């Protein structure tokens, strides 16, 4: 075996063309991998800068006019609330005033429709439920359509999956990457739920 190895070494590996071949292959591999990496690096760097202004996202939101199109007298609602809840008709009520069918009890005086309490002029509210209710105003439709057509790439996943006005308001009012500064603090710790286009005002530290 040793002899063989020595023979191979002497006869084959010491040939310049063999060495040149090995070297050439290594070089080609090296070059390709280098260029591949460079290409990726460039792409990554650009990723944050480039915004696809030309391609508005293909949203499928149906803004239904009136509530006649709803199949039954069941309501979807905002589910999560600690004290308040908003149904898909835009009524805000206390949790105890929620009916079995998921709608707010409109006979209770504290129940309000399209309520914008605690919402600022920039479209940011201090309560999630009020944000959703306010966002469900028919007059907000234009604003929402404009937002959808310009939505950032980061929101494509979310807003392409939204199907109607109510879902859009539920999703839009949630705190998101737009709501934070330095990642771990709210831009505005009070009015942080926004149906509008702009992020919350930066709260002075």
């Amino acid at each position, binding site marked *: 075996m040793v002899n*063989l190895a020595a*023979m*191979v070494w002497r*006869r*084959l590996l010491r*040939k*310049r*063309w063999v*060495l040149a071949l*090995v*070297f050439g292959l*290594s*070089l080609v*591999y*090296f*070059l390709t*991998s*280098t260029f591949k*990496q*460079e290409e990726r*690096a460039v*792409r*990554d*760097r650009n*990723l*944050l800068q480039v915004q696809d202004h030309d391609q508005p996202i293909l949203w499928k939101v149906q803004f239904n006019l009136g509530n006649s199109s709803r199949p039954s007298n069941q309501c979807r609602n905002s*589910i*999560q*609330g*600690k*004290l308040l809840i908003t149904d898909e008709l835009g009524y805000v009520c206390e*949790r*105890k005033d*929620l009916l*079995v*069918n*998921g709608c707010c009890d409109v006979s209770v005086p504290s129940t309000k429709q399209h309520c914008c309490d605690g919402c600022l002029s920039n479209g940011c509210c201090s309560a999630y439920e009020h944000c959703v209710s306010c966002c469900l105003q028919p007059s907000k439709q234009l604003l929402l359509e404009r937002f959808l057509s310009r939505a950032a790439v*980061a*929101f494509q*996943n*979310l807003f392409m*999956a*939204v199907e109607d006005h109510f*879902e859009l308001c*539920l*999703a839009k009012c*949630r*705190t*998101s*990457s737009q*709501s*934070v500064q*330095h*990642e*771990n*603090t*709210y831009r505005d*710790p009070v009015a942080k739920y926004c149906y509008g286009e702009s992020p919350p005002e930066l709260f002075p530290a």
Partner: protein
Amino acid sequence: MKLVNIWLLLLVVLLCGKKHLGDRLEKRSFEKAPCPGCSHLTLKVEFSSTVVEYADPVVPCNETRWSQKWQSSRPLRRASLSLGSGFWHATGRHSSRRLLRAIPRQVAQTLQADVLWQMGYTGANVRVAVFDTGLSEKHPHFKNVKERTNWTNERTLDDGLGHGTFVAGVIASMRECQGFAPDAELHIFRVFTNNQVSYTSWFLDAFNYAILKKIDVLNLSIGGPDFMDHPFVDKVWELTANNVIMVSAIGNDGPLYGTLNNPADQMDVIGVGGIDFEDNIARFSSRGMTTWELPGGYGRVKPDIVTYGAGVRGSGMKGGCRALSGTSVASPVVAGAVTLLVSTVQKRELVNPASMKQALIASARRLPGVNMFEQGHGKLDLLRAYQILNSYKPQASLSPSYIDLTECPYMWPYCSQPIYYGGMPTIVNVTILNGMGVTGRIVDKPEWQPYLPQNGDNIEVAFSYSSVLWPWSGYLAISISVTKKAASWEGIAQGHVMITVASPAEAESKNGAEQTSTVKLPIKVKIIPAPPRSKRILWDQYHNLRYPPGYFPRDNLRMKNDPLDWNGDHIHTNFRDMYQHLRSMGYFVEVLGSPFTCFDANQYGTLLMVDSEEEYFPEEVAKLRRDVDNGLSLIIFSDWYNTSVMRKVKFYDENTRQWWMPDTGGANIPALNELLSVWNMAFSDGLYEGDFTLASHDMYYASGCSIAKFPEDGVVITQTFKDQGLEVLKQETAVVENVPILGLYQIPAEGGGRIVLYGDSNCLDDSHRQKDCFWLLDALLQYTSYGVTPPSLSHSGHRQRPPSGAGLATPERMEGNHLHRYSKVLEARLGGPEPRALPACPHLSWAKPQPLNETAPSNLWKHQKLLSIDLDKVVLPNFRSNRPQVRPLSPGESGAWDIPGGIMPGRYNQEVGQTIPVFAFLGAMVVLAFFVVQINKAKSRPKRRKPRVKRPQLMQQVHPPKTPSV
């Protein structure tokens, strides 16, 4: 030859180009070490939190020494929780013996998931989300990947690390290493880049999408210490409020206590710890308690449950199986089990984050000899959870479900110290889980019903609790104290607390009627007569601050990979060993969670202040001075504070994308010096480090300060140390002699107390401690409690004249520090931070007892944990009884035990990928070297011979000689 030269040049150019490219990348993302010599540091990091680069002197890159940087963003604060290489074998407490026995096992079968599979449940119609590093598209193990989404800034959906694939595999793999729920709908959320970078904002957007998609179960094998990241914490609450069952890994920072990671430490999340296949708590698994409630309150019990997390097999990145360890692994085991359990329930509307958690903890099997801050409620029992869940009625329950302060070791630390009259009230932080609705409330008030035959009237109980239980949970803190009439009584007292929880009516119930659920919480305590003053030590918790939210640097500057002081600095977290030691020496330790104005100094022998970062109210300074004059003794273990060093240890935090400057040093020495000034004492801004011997004990001084000023008639001990400040700032080494580190002083007035100062707290702290100094604490307590000056110290050869303070600088507060943001004492004013008004001392209003003539069962643990659960009603197929616990290895599988590609467990394939170009490059270099040698040879030969040499070679090229075949 020319050609060769050109190639050589080309190669050099290319190399330079590549290097520049690398530099550019580094500057952009802080991902790599800035010098080639240090690169091995980054390779080792894996999923560890930070890298604070502190190159050893051997490494030739001086300019990077002491400069701190976050390795990458999310990893520090919210890292993926699988373990890097090296930890996979350190599972049990006797790891070296058990290493060979701890064969990776099929975790789903070990937990008897196959029983449920045979009943036809496989996770169908359950949407489970995996938030991790992604998954490749055509992975052979998965049949129902519904959607993959990417939330990072890398344009790929594939997993480049293997972490996400593994986690998804444990949940839903259908072949080789089987997961729990192969038919579940998998939603893959890629929120970590291949460099383990992630940001809160990515999570927020991804979580919103998960809510929209109505995810049922969400696994987060990630975690970090920042429970003050409000946007993140709020979002996790929002998810649970939207009925998403969150399962998260408790952290890999064990065996240290106080190391729970967020979000697993949240009440609404199922926090999972790790055990090995022999039911030992894994060394890496983070331990409780939660530290949110400090200093005034007491931490919650976490983790919730434990399950297999060491040497578990799961899917490899491209197929095949591999074994991994970490709570990252334990979390998907529970997430998979939960997914499978959800699919077994007929009435899906009964499943919610609370009911699932109730079922898991009520069915968990308690491990013997392990306390609740390590195991939570015990080990996951899938089949019992199935039985409980399938006979579940909406109700409230408590965690822990009883309070037996005498039960050891489960109820550690409560069982380690009996209660007595005059002591600080013992606080138990109970979590209320409310399976009836996302929101609820406590009706009226909790009721305290002492058992008269069992001396229940000897204790008093006070409550504080969440006004609204949301989402699905809330807290009930119970403070227990001894009544005056039992001041000299010894015995056991029992009773129970009744609470009623109400939630708005759900769709099913009669219209309008609130649902209610009443829970009984038995209480059992041991009372002893109050110990003498000299035996009682008060631990100052109020003046200990920690990360989060501020940057409070680590007390030992050599510990670069963990720059933050984040374990709570409590006697039951990172000062646990010290507490155990003091208990074993017969001392009673109580915790002061309020200002110095709020305790009766006549009760205590010694006030122990270790590593204090907080400021002091002027009233506190005055009160403490009076107390010491009246016989209270003071032991202060300080730490370093040097503004130049503080500026040096600032770092760029990629998480928050801003520079972080420490708000104090290891301790707040300027504040301490103000407190001590009346006694003519002060610490210096020096920074010293070194080994030494004191009273024949080996000691290590880890980044401590010295005493700058001490009264003439005191005893001062000095040592010789390295000047670490100089080393940090200028990379120079200097030895300083006669550094005063320990001072003992007796107040001269009649009945006055004693004061002891020591310049370093690291020898008491469990985190990064090298040599403990509990013996020194004993000696110092002998001195403070009984006035006995330990001869070993007073006659030590190291005793010197006390320093007068001349010549040594005492530190000033660093300009522009933000301590006031996190301080309970300071507030921002126009002319700079100033003390607030002294807050009122906490006042407990004792619940009115409603005595009962009842007796409690002797074993409280066995009492019913959930109401109206009839386990026999839910029958399991009878093949359960005599099937083996662990399935033997089938012949076809044997190869699958090995990790494909020869990669070590816990390592990632990516590393191998990176080495290929290196090998190629090395190969090219060897060939190049050969050519150079050849050229040199050729040059040295006479020119005329060259053609003759070359020609035959060329000929041979065309007609290669035959080599004999063997």
